[in-house]
């Protein structure tokens, strides 16, 4: 069996149910978006996959082997997390060299080349880096380890728009040259939506959506028009959100579009992942 398989995983912290019987599969060589609001359970899931936390119950297997306390499976994974696990007095250069000790396929030349592209001076101590450059240092490490599974937890935290664009570009180039599984947890959904092949949305520790991005977005659509027109049109449809601005109304609908019955005065637009995410994860 290939891929990361998560089977019925539950995790609690005291009274808080962080993950509730989660089952998921991450297939090889695909780019996944792991989306959820703050506190939804994304980081907990990534930490369980990489053995930094242990599940209360359930199993995680990597290419068919249990992930728990297993050096071999852990060598297949790399997690770029919010926490910095390197000693802070270490320079980036030293950190790259140590990473090479743990991950034999770490490509030092590639890492130094990326550092140059991002204008990160690798002689600097990790401690002295700004929030943005700390993220850049972690991105560079994650993109250079060459493990089959790379997990990114909030990779673009603190990055300016130019550096975010660079990250997306380098990620695509890297993935095209040498496909790997990327699991990306981010709040900047609009920017990354079209990069994702699959989308998983977590809400309150449960999987709400687990689908190919294209299928998900083709499941519904938005309509805009006068309140009267829109209300008539949506009366017999599954509506997941409505917004009114003056006399205009926009409604988000789940279901197939039947263009032949489309009344005048109604305009149709595609679903967009960020808007859909907001509708699905809003607490009413």
């Amino acid at each position, binding site marked *: 069996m290939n891929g990361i398989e998560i089977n019925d995983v539950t995790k609690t912290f005291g009274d808080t149910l962080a993950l509730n019987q989660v089952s998921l599969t991450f297939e090889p060589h*695909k*780019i996944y978006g792991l989306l959820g609001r703050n506190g939804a359970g994304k980081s907990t899931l990534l930490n369980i996959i990489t053995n930094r936390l242990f599940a209360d119950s359930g199993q995680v297997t990597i290419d068919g082997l249990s992930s728990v306390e297993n050096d071999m499976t852990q060598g297949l994974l790399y997690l770029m997390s919010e926490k910095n696990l390197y000693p802070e007095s270490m320079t980036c250069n030293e950190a790259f060299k140590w990473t090479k000790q743990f991950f034999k396929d770490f490509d030092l030349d590639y890492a130094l080349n990326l550092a140059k592209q991002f204008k990160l001076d690798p002689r600097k101590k990790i401690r002295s880096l700004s929030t943005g450059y700390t993220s850049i240092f972690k991105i560079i490490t994650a993109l250079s380890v060459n493990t089959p599974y790379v997990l990114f937890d909030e990779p673009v935290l603190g990055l300016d728009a130019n550096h975010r*664009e660079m990250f*997306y*570009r380098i990620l*695509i*180039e890297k*993935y*095209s*040259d040498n496909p790997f599984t990327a699991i990306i947890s981010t709040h900047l959904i609009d*920017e990354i*939506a*079209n*990069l*994702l*092949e699959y989308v998983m949305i977590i809400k309150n520790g449960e999987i709400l959506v687990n689908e190919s*991005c*294209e299928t998900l977005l*083709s499941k519904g659509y938005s309509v805009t028009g006068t309140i009267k027109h829109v209300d008539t049109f949506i009366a017999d449809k599954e509506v997941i959100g409505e917004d009114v601005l003056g006399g205009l109304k926009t409604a988000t609908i789940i279901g197939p579009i039947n263009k032949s019955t489309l009344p*005048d005065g109604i305009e*149709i*637009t*595609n679903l*967009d992942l960020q808007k859909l995410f907001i509708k699905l994860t809003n607490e009413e």
Partner: protein
Amino acid sequence: MQINFEDERPIFVQIADGIEDAILTGAFEESGQIPSITELSVSYKINPATALKGISTLVDEGIIFKKRGVGMFVAPGAVSKLRDKRKELFFDHYIKKLIEEAKKLGITNEEILGMVERGYQE
């Protein structure tokens, strides 16, 4: 070539249509090389699988061909093939919509013909 993420067409269709447009206008010439999957994915920030799906439809139609290890090229005869295909779609895509809108506005058949004439002269 522009990708509009609010467009009703899926992104892979927009990629294929965009390349077709570029071939029809001569921006990509017959037998000339077109951008690689990676270049397309990077410039539009889309998943390479999406770009590949768009290109594959053109390969299946014989508009684009691949040379192993070299890249992708516009097939000889692609322009006339595309013209024939687009002409077939012209009625559905443009004329039907035109008449629909004209009916809404109360524009007659003769008036449309007059406008078409004017359009060609301008």
